[in-house]
């Protein structure tokens, strides 16, 4: 009777445990798609909205109605102010002895936009002609929309989450149940156990990235401008870095609670700082070097560069370097610290 190679058996165990856990499948495959779909819908690029404004006096109403992007309601001054306060209109235009008065909240972009449109309409009704003719050209190309920015961010976040959660919970659970101790009581080489996580992760990575990126490309037309090989190399480096980080996090914890606290402490800052949902550039300059050194920032930057700008592998070398650095550091530490009993 020849049995299968232990590494294959161990990797099969990882798959079996994964597919027999419906929650895990939800978090890894369904959740990112729901998130992408939801955010994609919420932030879809819409044609400029028609803004609601209130005007006092028929002459003003007539002048404003020449502007198609304004929805004008004639109201008396007190009702108009009330409507503004309740947010029913973005702007109130009143006749004043010296011309017109605009009432609006200048922290509200709709208010500022409405004021601009209203002022232009009133001035051109009064006979102003534009000294410099201008033409509007609208940018709604794939690659520069929010969904294009978002999909690589979600991919990175997903790779981090599934590597760290997948590794962390399984290892700590096995330690708690004394299964690790039972395994080291067999002739199994210890590194096979850790290697089986990495092997199964890499296989799952293909499916996972395929599903989310495929969804983005098919449903939202997110571009994939870089070479598939370059994109794959970035994913591989990212996933290995996070596997090592997960292994380090799981190397000593004895309880699920301790491990999950640790995982949150490690991942939370990256969810916020690494530019998943908005650009990391928004944080103060002083923080930038630290943010750039985070593995998730490096991964997401490299993914965006590859997918959206079609950057070659050489262009994302700094990010790949950061990822490999994290991988080596975490893996080395994890091997030193790992507690089998």
């Amino acid at each position, binding site marked *: 009777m020849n049995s299968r190679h232990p590494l294959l058996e161990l990797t099969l165990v990882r798959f079996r445990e994964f597919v027999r856990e419906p929650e895990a499948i939800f978090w890894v495959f369904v959740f990112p798609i729901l998130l992408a779909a939801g955010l994609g819908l919420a932030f879809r690029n819409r044609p400029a909205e028609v803004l609601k404004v209130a005007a006092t006096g028929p002459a003003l109403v007539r002048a404003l109605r020449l502007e198609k992007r304004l929805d004008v309601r004639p109201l008396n001054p007190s009702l108009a102010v009330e409507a503004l306060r309740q947010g029913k209109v973005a702007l109130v235009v009143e006749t004043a002895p010296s011309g017109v008065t605009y009432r609006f909240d200048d922290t509200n972009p709709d208010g500022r936009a409405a004021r601009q449109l209203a002022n232009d309409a009133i001035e051109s009704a009064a006979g102003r002609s534009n000294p410099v003719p201008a033409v509007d050209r609208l940018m709604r190309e794939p690659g520069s929309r929010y969904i294009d920015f978002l999909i690589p961010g979600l991919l990175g976040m997903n790779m981090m989450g599934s590597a760290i959660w997948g590794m962390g919970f399984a290892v700590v659970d096995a330690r708690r149940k004394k299964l690790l101790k039972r395994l080291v009581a067999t*002739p199994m080489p210890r590194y096979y156990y850790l290697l089986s996580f990495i092997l199964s992760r890499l296989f799952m990575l293909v499916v996972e990235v395929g599903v989310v990126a495929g969804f983005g490309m098919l449903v939202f037309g997110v571009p994939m401008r870089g070479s598939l090989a370059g994109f794959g190399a970035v994913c591989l480096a990212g996933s290995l870095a996070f596997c090592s980080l997960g292994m380090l996090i799981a190397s000593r914890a004895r309880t699920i609670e301790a491990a999950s606290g640790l995982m949150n402490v490690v991942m939370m800052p990256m969810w916020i700082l690494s530019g998943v949902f908005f650009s990391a550039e928004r944080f103060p300059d002083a923080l930038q070097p630290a943010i750039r050194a985070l593995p998730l920032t490096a991964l997401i930057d490299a993914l965006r560069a590859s997918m959206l700008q079609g950057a070659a592998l050489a262009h994302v070398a700094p990010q790949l370097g950061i990822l490999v650095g994290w991988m080596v550091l975490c893996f080395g530490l994890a091997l030193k610290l790992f507690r089998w009993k």
Partner: protein
Amino acid sequence: MSSLSAPPALRVRNLRKAFQDVVAVDGLDLEVRAGECFGLLGPNGAGKTTTIEICEGLTDRDSGEVEVLGLSWEKDARRLRERLGIQLQETQLSEKLTVHETLSLFRSFFPRGPSPDETIARVQLEEKRNSRVGSLSGGQKQRLALACALVGEPDLLFLDEPTTGLDPQARRQLWEVIAELQRAGRTILLTTHYMEEAERLCDRVAIMDHGKVIALGTPRELIASIGAGHVVRLSSSGSPLDAAAFGALACVAAARTDDGAVEAQVEQLHDALPALLDELERQGRPLTELRVHSATLEDVFMAFTGRRLRDE
């Protein structure tokens, strides 16, 4: 069965191990012969698990010698692992795998051994071959754990409390499996705190307390060593009985009070019983309960330590 000249399967000399301020193993000597089923019997905290895990190479010792199958952990760890079958006191195998999947995993670690299906048959889990581990009963899980120890066709089997926590029926079922292994000539070291288990399964037993072996021999020898084949228990209503008066009787080897009753160890029942009843009569105490049983390892433990193996 085994010739006395054959090298022992396990030899432990003056073994010591302390955890911080707790001395778990305190100068322990042990020798398990090839082909025998050897029992380590002792109460909770006696140091059984610590001892067996040092022999399994899972815990480091503070001092002493350990030789397993003529090899040492320092030099031959990898070879030893291939030749040992190990069941830990409390391993929970992955609940999501089936019985067969679990055994093929463990089988893949060993260079030789029976197929998973043969192992399943050995522990009588055929009907559960494709069931998830999570759905097994406690007894079935223990039999699976035993099967995992058998996949490599081990030369020495370590079983740490294989039946603890099982109901009597499941325990008996497991005993059958272990007795079958013993009949097949396997060398087994098992720990237990059930004296009945040790009496039934073990060729020789070491009774352990506070990290030391306090008595060693076949169950029969151990029971004979306390010089009393039977234990008579007398209860009376009212104040506790005075053991000393009963112990002074010529036909009583030893007597002690236990929960207000007297337990007397006697050799000849037909002499001792009338004498004990006469003594009770003389004290003017009415007899409310009389129980007699043949001495067991429990009584041996009691004779050596004055305590019970388990707190019922």
